[in-house]
């Protein structure tokens, strides 16, 4: 009795608003439905086959995977390098940590509106480039089909890099100083200490960062939607912007839910694979161990 009073309210809220919609979403995804009125037009798996035959959606998937890959390959080493450099006592360290983390707490919508203004033609960014003699590099950052996805990536990096740095810094500070001192006494140089002691011990933190970054990248929406709405002509579409445009704006609600289920399968597949190949050996992998 006591137990159910404690457990049920949270459980009901969770089942109703988190698991419920996902389960019902699978059902909707089998129908042709505009989001209003009765759900009657059963189409089986047609929404799914249509999605994978649609060039637009396949492009959106590739963009999402590209953004995810870029985040891992570029933001990862950048965050790690910065964290290693900042992980020592120096004047103003607390302030630096504050500054680095600041963009992460801004609402992504605010970041997106701010950067779309700074990036508009002849705006702040263009004027800075001209002032430092890089005027030849000026582009239509948000309108050039070949550039726009990378522009979005840079803004995403501006917002999220600090999170990686601060996370890794926290991990670095959890490494006992004694280990490094002992190695130094045994004659190891700074590089060897970093390579043989610090990086291996930072492994769990790095793997959590990878996990959070991939799950976040697979569902990226706010910044891309507000800067370019996935345009021009789908050149910066992610899976989530495509889902919102088709499912909600164009009222192909059943189809949009099929797209969200596909997104979910991507997340799930990543989690299972990651658990199997990367997190299994972490004692600190409680997060995904519990999930999978």
């Amino acid at each position, binding site marked *: 009795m006591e137990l159910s009073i404690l457990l049920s309210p*949270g459980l009901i809220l969770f089942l109703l608003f988190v698991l419920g919609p996902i389960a019902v979403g699978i059902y909707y995804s089998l129908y042709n439905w505009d989001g209003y009125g009765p759900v009657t037009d059963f189409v089986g798996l047609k929404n799914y086959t249509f999605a994978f035959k649609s060039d637009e959606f396949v492009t959106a998937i590739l963009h999402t995977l590209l953004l995810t890959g870029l985040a891992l390959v570029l933001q990862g080493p950048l965050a790690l390098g910065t964290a290693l450099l900042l992980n020592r006592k120096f004047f103003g360290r607390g302030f630096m940590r504050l500054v680095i983390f600041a963009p992460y707490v801004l609402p*992504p919508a605010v970041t997106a509106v701010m950067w779309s203004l700074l990036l*508009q033609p002849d705006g702040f960014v263009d004027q800075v480039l001209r002032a430092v003699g890089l005027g030849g590099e000026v582009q239509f950052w948000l309108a050039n089909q070949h550039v726009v996805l990378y522009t979005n990536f840079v803004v995403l990096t501006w917002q999220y890099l600090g999170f990686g740095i601060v*996370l890794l810094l926290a991990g670095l500070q959890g490494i006992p100083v004694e280990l490094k001192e002992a190695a130094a006494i045994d004659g190891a140089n700074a590089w060897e200490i970093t390579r043989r002691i610090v990086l291996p011990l930072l492994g769990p933190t790095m793997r959590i960062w990878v996990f959070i970054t991939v799950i976040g990248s697979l569902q990226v929406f706010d910044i891309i939607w507000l800067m370019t709405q996935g345009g021009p002509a789908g050149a910066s579409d992610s899976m989530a912007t495509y889902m919102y445009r088709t499912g909600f704006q164009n009222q192909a609600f059943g189809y949009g839910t099929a797209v969200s289920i596909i997104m979910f399968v991507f997340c799930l597949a990543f989690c299972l694979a990651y658990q199997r190949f990367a997190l299994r050996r972490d004692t600190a992998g409680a997060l995904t161990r519990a999930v999978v």
Partner: protein
Amino acid sequence: MPATYLVSIVILGITIVPLLFVFLDGASSNQQLGSNSIGLPHPWVWSNYGSILTTAPFWQFLGNSALIAVVATTLAVVLGSMAAFALSRYDFRGREFYYTLFITGLLFPIVIAALPLFALLQDLGLLDSWLGVALPEAAFALPITMLILRPFMRAIPGDLEDAALVDGAGRLRFFVQILIPLCKPALVTVSLLAFVTSWNQFLLPLLVFTTQSNFTLPVGVSVYQSTYSSNTALILAFTMLAAAPALAVFVFAERYLVAGAAGAVKG
């Protein structure tokens, strides 16, 4: 050492300079921005900030955001700590199943659930209502709340509970009067995580709200941008003011948020 300072200065530049110029350009005239947005405002035009702060929309958006974030956070933390207590200090069949169920929620970001969630809120009559945003946000904050609170509550020695029971306190009284105060650091962290997540949420209020006076700040910013698209300075000023509360709170809350990030690592 020089490398540390060099990197610090580069990061400082990349992070602070854009924000600084959003502020400065928000106090400039549009004529100036067209030709020179990298200098100081000349003349200073405070009327952009003034007109935003003296008209209703900004304060409405701010109030709506605050109401929703407070309700979502309170619900998530109260219900989350009750459930975490049940799942950490009671022995019963299915305990691990329920915990795993909650943690599975980490795999369902709001973006993925958004469309069916919209249909559900429509059926419940919660569209265009602040509850329609606050309730799902609270629900989606539960997994991370449980993930941080349960190990924390488990780590508190059982002797303490036995002592309370011997002294005649019931388990609920132990929970409210002893366990909750002991969990304060973890509670602060999960509250902040829930609050910031709600404050920053964009897609859900975008789907739910149709009446402008109900908008939250993130949705309001985007609407403001499309409404005044030709008045760059005014939108920049609005963006700056919209960023201000998050930055202000952050200065005080930084160490708890970092602790939260580190806590997620330790699991």
